[in-house]
């Protein structure tokens, strides 16, 4: 990777599905249609980081909840980060932070989101550290047994303001 060619979400979002085959260690097991649905519905919110060979080394996949859907969650239109991951050899470079910032910016500027939310495993201290200390998220609630294996999730939230 040469530096970070971050927002290369550009010209081939879908072919990323093929290229993302590289990411064997990614924990997510989403169906193709799930990816396609997100990319199509909220194209501005999802980003990948590529290296100079065009290999994907990280991504963020996000969506919006509009006011109606948000009813039970407080009524505000808000963004939600479904999934974020960076290949291990490209960690500690601030990639995850930048992917998150890009997505948050778009949530705010394109969709006028009031806040962004995400779920994180209670045990994932590294991720919680990133969200809380670097990005300013706060734990809003705990969802018991959110994950398939019975682990609890923290719901973390960040109020969005004009950041750029």
């Amino acid at each position, binding site marked *: 990777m*040469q530096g970070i060619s971050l927002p290369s979400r*550009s010209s*081939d979002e*879908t072919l990323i599905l093929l290229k993302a*085959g590289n990411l064997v260690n990614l924990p997510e097991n989403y169906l193709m249609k799930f990816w396609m649905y997100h990319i199509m519905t909220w*194209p*501005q919110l999802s980003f990948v980081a590529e290296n100079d060979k065009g290999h994907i080394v990280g991504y963020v996949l996000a969506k919006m909840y509009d006011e109606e859907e948000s009813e039970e969650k407080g009524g505000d239109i808000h963004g939600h980060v479904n999934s974020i991951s960076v290949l291990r*050899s490209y960690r500690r470079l601030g990639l995850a932070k930048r992917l998150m910032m890009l997505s948050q910016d778009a949530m705010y500027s394109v969709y006028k989101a009031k806040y962004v939310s995400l779920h994180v495993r209670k045990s994932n201290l590294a991720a919680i550290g990133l969200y809380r200390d670097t990005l300013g998220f706060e734990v809003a609630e705990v969802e018991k047994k959110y994950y398939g294996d019975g682990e609890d999730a923290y719901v973390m939230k960040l109020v969005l303001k004009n950041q750029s």
Partner: protein
Amino acid sequence: MSVALDRQIRPIYDALDTGSHKSAITECNKVLKKHPKNALVKALKALALVRYQKVEEALVLCDEVLESKPTDDSTLNAMMHVLRGLGRHKDMITMYDAAYKKQPTNEELGAQTFFANVRANNWKSAQQIASKMYKQFQEDRYLYWSVMSNVLQANDTNTPPEMRTLLYKLALRLITSAPTPSSVHSDRFYLHLTILRELSEYDEAMTLLETPTGRNICEINLACNEMRRDIMRLRGALEEEGKRAEQRILERSDRNWLEFLSVVDGTFASLTDSEDAKEQSASKISNTLALFTKISVQDGRKDRSGLLGLLELEHRARKHGVSTDPARLLRLIEQYFETFGDKACCFEDLKPYLSLDGEDLATWTKVLETCFSALSSIEAVRRAINAHKLLRYNLSASELSVDAESSRATLYISQYLEGLPLGKALPATELQHVDDLAILAGSAFVNIWKVSGDEKYLYKAAAILEFALAKSKQAFQMRLMLIRIYRLLGAPSVALEHYRLLRVKQVQNDTLSHFVLSRCSTFSLAASGDLTFTSECLESSQIYVSNSQETNDYVIRAFSAEKYSQIPQFILFEDWLENSLQRDITKLEYLRMRITHETISSDIVDLELIELKFIFDRLHHDNRDFQILLNYQPKIVEDFNTQTLLFDKPEGHGWVWSFLKSYIKVFSHASDLSDVVEEKLLVGDRPQVSPKTGSLKDRLAQRKDEEIAELTRDELSLISYIDSLAEWLEPFHDYVRPPASVVLADVAKNTELKTGLPLRGVDIPPPQNGHGKKEEETPPITDVPEVVAGFFENMKTRFEDSKHAGSLSEILHIATITQEAFLLFTTETMRFKPASVVKIHKLGNLVTKFKPIRALAVGVLKDMAASLERLSAQEGTSEKRKEIVDACVFESSEIDHDIITNTFKKVIESRKKVLEGMAKGLLKICTTYDY
């Protein structure tokens, strides 16, 4: 619809929804008793039948409903699913067309008709329908649908090049005729820019981009911004773009590497050979130098862009011959290593700039060699790993002797063990910090194996990787290396176990399955009843089914949502998967295994033949991912992927063509399905045929050098053998094969027996001669071609030779190829088996020539089976086990002996099992076909 009827129909839908196809059929029959003409119920029954795999019966109903020309939503919708299930996209178009014509003001019907054409990639008609809808309903989006259809037609590979510009021009005329400008909607804007770019109308594109709305869109829409960058580049406005990028870097602290590249591109944009230009560029280079230096100082260790930018700048300056400071490159490399040497990506970052030689290289090597300190921190470990990788990358041939590599491996292992305790507290989901040192050791051992040919080193590589993997369970890179090593060692079940632990999912089934499915018939025990690999093939091929069902839906949805920037990508994605090279490699491997397991019959031959001919018309796309294998081998030797390919031969398009041609030849000989018959009986649409020259027969006859080059020596023998065998027997097949009319009459009779209804849509002229003797003479009986006569003896010799010298996987390869030759011989001569056929056609003299070939083949295969059994027995001995384990004793006692012993127990078991099973399978095949 009456309420009562509605109530009766609901259970049908429920049954369909829950997948109870059989009860759906029963419910349909109930309703049809009272309402025998109801089109909706008929359509639903057809759908249930399709899903219940009763295609023949479904076809009858389907055609009835189509004839009634339905217009109501529910029936059309049900029929859409039926026709999709049958692959009859063209009929879907006809159906919607007719319905839309009857109700031209029905907007929904119009849209459905448009979508039906989209599904069939029928862009021309899609465009016409969209224009018609635009006129009728005056909605902008329909205009854009027609523009998009034009663009897609232009991009279609079947569209002649001279038409392309014309279609784009038409698209431009349409888009500029829209009442509202394209910039009201970013995706419409994107489409507009695409067309302008294609027509090289860069100035007009710039005018659009320079408008306030245009600028706004580029700010928030990365697809449009990328397009803008592209157009700037095409205009040759590199300097202008470089300036803009510089602004972004400075004012908005943008650290997108693409911006840095734009600055570098701008710096060298106007460089020509003239002296003036060189002088000018010197000042530009120093400006950029100042800019990047400033950024690198400002960012420090926070961001790599500034320093990497300096490296790229110097690299390009050297390439253009305008570098002013011969020491700068080395200085920058050193500085980079100093600053970012403890980042995991440092090696990959520096790799493009490492072309040092002479004194520079010596200095650099010294820097790296002296940087090792005690591995007491994670940073020190990462720095050491980077230094090892960087040193290894530049090793020269003289530094790669077995001894030198062995002591290097020992060093990697000792440092691995030294640093291992640093990761003691890591959770099981995390990777160990020292993993790469084990990978380096494994790479060194593999390299020694490649040089010395001594399998002992493959075992050593496997041992250290297994040890490290036990400490770092998520280290999939090690698994991939191990899969390659175990296949080389002839231990397929251990390789497969690792592959399954990767939990390959979705599209990875296409990109990564080559790791275990490439030439997997070599290891298949299907002949003796073990279907592990055949089912692995079927499972990994599921992705292609879901692709053809789902991706298409997304193209439709993208039209509805006006996401024009995504439509071409969805289509390309679908196409890449649909025509995936790996898909058909898997298919061929599956077929090669299938004929060892199932009794070869005309049913298998007919069905496979039709599919193979479909595949033969595909333009394949290679999606296989080989880059995923890490490569830390020195740059002067082959990379790890190449080093560990089974039989040293990567298979690709040429391999697929070679085997396709062979199987199509043999199967079309053995089959009664002539093109005429096939055409009449085919249910779905034919795939779009790429424009190819020549008839099928001509294409089959060609063997190109680049195809042959992808075959192993034994595969090549097989292919030559098949070619001569097929050429020899072709005249007799053509002579004996019953005429199309007889075959069709046969099929019709069978269909009627099965469904109780006559076969529709096929006119059968009464057979003229029946099965009787032909008018013309029996073709002259010729001698067995030499290639055929000598094949099995040759394979016997090959087998004996490799038994003494070769690897286990090569022994298996020779045995399976010989087996395949025998099975294809059986297929090719199947037609001449019945005594009545021989008698009527006077082929007695031909058939007597088969007997010695078959006897020879059976003899050779039985001998091979006996040898394999003996080898299998040897694998099991305790001496053999001790020999291997002893080979893998490492100097360090910290490497757990149990892991090594257990691993090799599994490897030996696997080798034993595959040898034993293969022997059994060979004998079984001999018994089945020795008549």
